[in-house]
């Protein structure tokens, strides 16, 4: 197998009998053993279970099973509960937690015959933009190991960028799929809120959390999306959808666009800056492909980051109350009282960024501050969603930078949380509006990959996927790999 193959290429090779799934998995495991020591993109490797599943997939194939996803290797972000397997959410609090059940995403992927080879590193409870808040150590960016991979799905992004897996699951609350995809030069799709079940995905901010695929290209993203997505009666916020294009994309690949699109450029996102040349070149490419670019305005953009940190922290502060040392997870030694058990277990089990957000969230929900923070943020959230609705009246989708900078050095922003939060500048508005957005590579700055974002109306992932696929047919940014000449 050629390194940096896509899921679709592997699928074709498996179908042709070039190699078996067992061989494919063995190959992956060897790569990870050789290369992950300096990346630290995996927390848990499930070699044995993966080989068993691969053998089962080979058996199914021999008996005539031709599903394109059968026997394909991938990795789960360690935020998805996997039955009988360590599930940590990157936290000391859950460093001993073996989940007693499978998340819906996990069972969906298993039902499609896909083989999970391990669980990837992440910022603690998905809180972070650099993967430096993980209890299991920071992850290195394969393009430059002094730099961060982004976060919170930093392990998944680094593993895909380094060619350790072709696909990994991620979760995105305010940019946690798209920003690391941009910083690692891969494709990352945050679907519409409700498209993929949240059941079994450890909650950070329930009204924002959304799982999605992280892959080498848009074709693979569509393939994984079709497996991950679907209504789930166990998730009251999951959407009942019957989008025929989703299955069609998975089986036939992404079709050419019928007609050119009108692409909106939110003026608030296109401020002059040293890293804007990549996306400027992408604009020219899109015009060359026949699309119309049009300036639009999303006037409440500036409020998005503060609104996001109020709401996400508020929800997180209560979502994380269950980690109390009573039933599972970290428990302090010899507690003297219930209060002591709570205080020491939580003091010891949570990292600094998680504590910061619990404190922030507790404060904004408190009597006397609730109206000024939480309620006001909810109102602005609605205004931000209206901004997008208004913009989509005149355009098919929006183009924007994914992150303001390429990957930055480790420890560069750890002492300045507010500067770290600015990494989410371009990703949180669409998260607050629940909209789908894809980040794909569009060039380099300072020798590091830069991504661009395509944002679509709710449940129209088909648009950014089709446009991204077209862009990737005409460019090769997504085919660049770390260690090669740029």
């Amino acid at each position: 197998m050629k390194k940096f193959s896509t899921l679709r290429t592997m699928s074709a090779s498996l179908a042709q009998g070039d190699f078996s799934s067992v061989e494919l998995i063995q190959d992956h495991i060897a790569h990870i053993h050789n290369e992950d020591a300096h990346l630290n993109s995996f927390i848990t490797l499930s070699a044995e279970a993966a080989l068993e599943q691969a053998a089962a997939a080979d058996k199914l194939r021999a008996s005539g099973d031709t599903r394109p996803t059968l026997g394909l290797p991938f990795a789960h972000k360690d935020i998805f509960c996997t039955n009988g397997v360590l599930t940590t959410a990157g936290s000391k609090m859950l460093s001993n937690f073996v989940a007693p059940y499978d998340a819906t995403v996990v069972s969906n992927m298993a039902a499609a015959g896909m083989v999970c080879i391990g669980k990837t590193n992440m910022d603690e409870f998905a809180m972070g933009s650099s993967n430096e808040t993980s209890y299991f150590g920071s992850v290195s960016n394969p393009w430059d190991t002094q730099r961060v991979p982004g976060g919170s799905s930093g392990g998944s992004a680094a593993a895909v960028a380094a060619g350790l897996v072709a696909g990994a699951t991620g979760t995105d609350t305010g940019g946690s799929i798209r920003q690391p995809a941009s910083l690692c030069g891969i494709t990352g799709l945050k679907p519409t809120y409700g498209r993929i079940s949240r059941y079994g995905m450890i909650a950070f901010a329930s009204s924002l959390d959304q799982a999605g695929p992280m892959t080498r290209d848009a074709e693979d993203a569509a393939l994984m999306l079709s497996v991950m997505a679907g209504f789930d009666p166990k998730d009251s916020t999951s959407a009942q959808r019957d989008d025929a294009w989703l299955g069609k994309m998975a089986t036939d690949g992404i079709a050419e666009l019928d007609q050119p699109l009108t692409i909106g450029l939110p003026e608030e996102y296109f401020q002059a800056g040293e890293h804007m040349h990549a996306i400027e070149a992408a604009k020219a490419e899109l015009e060359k492909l026949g699309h119309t670019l049009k300036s639009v305005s999303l006037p409440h953009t500036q409020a998005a980051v503060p609104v996001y940190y109020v709401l996400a922290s508020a929800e997180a502060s209560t979502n994380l109350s269950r980690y109390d040392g009573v039933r599972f997870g970290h428990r302090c030694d010899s507690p003297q009282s219930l209060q002591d058990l709570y205080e020491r277990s939580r003091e010891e089990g949570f990292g600094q960024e998680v504590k910061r957000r619990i404190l922030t969230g507790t404060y904004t929900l408190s009597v006397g501050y609730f109206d000024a923070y939480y309620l006001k943020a909810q109102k602005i959230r609605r205004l931000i969603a209206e901004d997008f609705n208004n913009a989509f009246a005149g355009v098919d989708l929006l183009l924007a930078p994914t992150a303001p900078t390429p990957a930055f050095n480790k420890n560069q922003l750890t002492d300045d949380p507010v500067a770290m939060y600015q990494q989410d500048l371009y990703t949180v508005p669409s998260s607050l509006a629940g909209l789908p957005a894809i980040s794909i590579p569009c060039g380099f700055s300072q020798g590091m990959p830069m991504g661009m974002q395509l944002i679509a109306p709710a449940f129209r992932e088909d648009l950014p996927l089709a446009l991204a696929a077209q862009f990737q047919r005409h460019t090769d940014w997504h085919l660049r790999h770390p260690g090669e000449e740029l």
Partner: protein
Amino acid sequence: MSWEAVIGLEIHVQLATQSKIFSGASTAYGAAPNAQACNIDLGMPGVLPVLNERAVELAIRFGLAIDAQINLYSIFDRKNYFYADLPKGYQISQFETPIVGAGQVTVTPENGKPRRVGITRAHLEEDAGKSVHDLYPGQTAVDLNRTGTPLLEVVSEPDMRTAQEASAYFRQIHTLARYIGICDGNLAEGSMRCDANVSVRPTGQEAFGERTEIKNINSFRFVEQAIEHEIARQIDVLEAGGRIHRETRLYDPDKDETRSMRSKELSNDYRYFPDPDLMPLTISEALVERIRSELPELPDARCARYGDQLGLSASDATAISSDIDRADFFDAAVSAGANAKQCANWIMGELSAYLNKQAMPLSASPVTPSLLAQLIARVEDSTLSSKTAKTLFDALWEEGPSADVDGLISSLNLAQMSDDGALTQIIDDLIAANPKQFEELRGGKDKMLGFFVGQVMKATQGKANPQQVNEIIRAKL
């Protein structure tokens, strides 16, 4: 100075659903500790709540039964606090927008006047688990079987003025909940619990006094005792020049006293906010109307029907209608032909006594409504005397539902003797044997009539018709 109490109750009604309000785990009572706590009840990482529609329907049913506004749009909130038996660190409840709005009931305490009690609201929420402090010395055991059991919290206005009214209100809600089938009403198993808010003020004063809250009372008797006690305590404190502090108190039925649990002056901040895991609850008018059409006859209507149409006394009508099982039994017996008044007497008398003696629920009674109706019919047609009717009732209780009433009357020889000739013979023999007594009776000593009737009854093992015996003796005078 004379004082007036002001009382409001919060009643927690466990809704009679098969599964929990946000998970599929069973709500059955009495399983091994933690055997009925699934991943969702345990608050495992990643789990999500899904609302049990049955709980919503039962809440609507209650709202309609108290003539309340049903809110077609309501919201589930998180009530945040830490406790060992609250796995998620928050309870899912309804804060600003409950499913049931303002309603009312009218309650009549024993020997008191009817009082309208306003119900502020009723909202859906999940129950917490149980902390057991006396199982292991120095440790607390946590049983999460009850976690997630659906509760309807019924909040009254501070409309009650006496402990008797509060107890009557608690009974009324209990009766109503059982009538409409939303709760099994088993107080011993905690299916209904109440918290009482109590304050006192000088009679005539408009403003409320400072109140205390008495927590977790689970019997009609205790609610009355606890409030009585708390009213007396508050009056004592105020009359001694003291001040009532806002606090939560616990009633100890063994010592008949309330004691302070925690001060509420620094009131807990529960940081309520809408639960982002649950969509707002929207209910259609059609669903409300369907549930309205399925409502059974309610206790007030039933009580009125028993008085107006069946001629029961007010106290009998109230007694029979106050319990759905009793009322259903009564209705079944009456439609099987029983005389209503007689039927009420039997149910409130013999039947209740037998059931109480064996701590048996009415539903398990071996004497069915149909058997009771047949028994009453045989009293009415004079086949049975009141004494032999009781003997027959005994026999029916032993035989159970398949008993043959007429067969037993004959095999036990219970029919009244109405043969004039045979009775006259017995009476003649008695007169011959007791000439002195007969002379006294003749001389106007009416008391002697009782003597002769008694002797006849004795000779006939109670089967003689006393009226007939009377007539025959009088004819001899």
